[in-house]
């Protein structure tokens, strides 16, 4: 992997409009049964504008930034050798239906460890007003030749 990627900041992703049915679909997929994830009235009663996304929903937006990284011509990342090492989400607020979200990817670090490379990709997700919503940090392990 190209060590010069470290510190690189990518172009913001195209705005992603969070749909109510997409949140419900994702909630069902992760066994999220809270009324706040499904019922707009319950969400409004709890102070939200619309239904609330489960905590790992930002992965849907993060996915487009990781696609940017893998497609970067000089990155040298072989997708078939990539293993997800760890994942973290740090929230300013939860994602709710109706949010229009944009993500900016920064390659926070690149390390080599025993023939493998580890890339830490940080996706900063903001809403239409530019306010921070959540930062998603993934460490991808790229296995070396065996």
């Amino acid at each position: 992997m190209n060590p010069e990627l470290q510190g690189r900041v990518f172009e913001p992703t195209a705005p992603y409009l969070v749909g109510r049915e997409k949140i419900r679909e994702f909630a069902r997929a992760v066994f999220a049964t809270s009324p706040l994830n499904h019922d707009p009235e319950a969400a409004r009663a709890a102070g939200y504008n619309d239904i609330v996304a489960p905590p790992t929903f930002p992965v849907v937006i993060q996915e487009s930034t990781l696609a940017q990284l893998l497609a970067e011509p000089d990155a040298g990342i072989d997708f078939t050798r990539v293993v997800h090492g760890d994942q973290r989400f740090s929230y300013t607020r939860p994602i709710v239906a109706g949010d229009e979200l944009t993500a900016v990817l920064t390659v926070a670090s690149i390390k080599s460890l025993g023939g493998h490379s580890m890339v830490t990709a940080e996706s900063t997700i903001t809403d239409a007003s530019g306010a921070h919503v959540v930062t998603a940090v993934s460490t991808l392990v790229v296995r070396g030749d065996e």
Partner: protein
Amino acid sequence: MADLNLEKGQIVAETTFSITRDSLVRYAGASGDFNPIHYRDDVATSVGLPGVLAHGMLTMGFAIQPVVDWIGDSGKVLDYQVRFTRPVLVDAVVGASVTVVAKVGSVDDDVARIDLTVTYGEQTVLGKAQARVSLA
């Protein structure tokens, strides 16, 4: 609402999830992660895996749900992290059973750190699985 008299080590939630191949297909569609190692045995074995695996992000996704149900609002989760240490192999017929135990790791004013132990068979599949939740 959660009981706020929390003590370190206290179990706040415990749930067992039954994961099937159907769960993997549903998660693939919902998340957009269509890596075929999560639904095709032939592809999984061709890259040296013992069989079809659950998406790590699916395991991360449901592992927090017992905590969300306990705290009552997923918006109270301030931070959530996991390390993917072992795969969850999902048999085509019997699926896989994954157990989540959520314990209080520490309490600091209005924020608790909840530590998750996520096991499949006798082995843990996530490392350093922690959520910081607001108790306010």
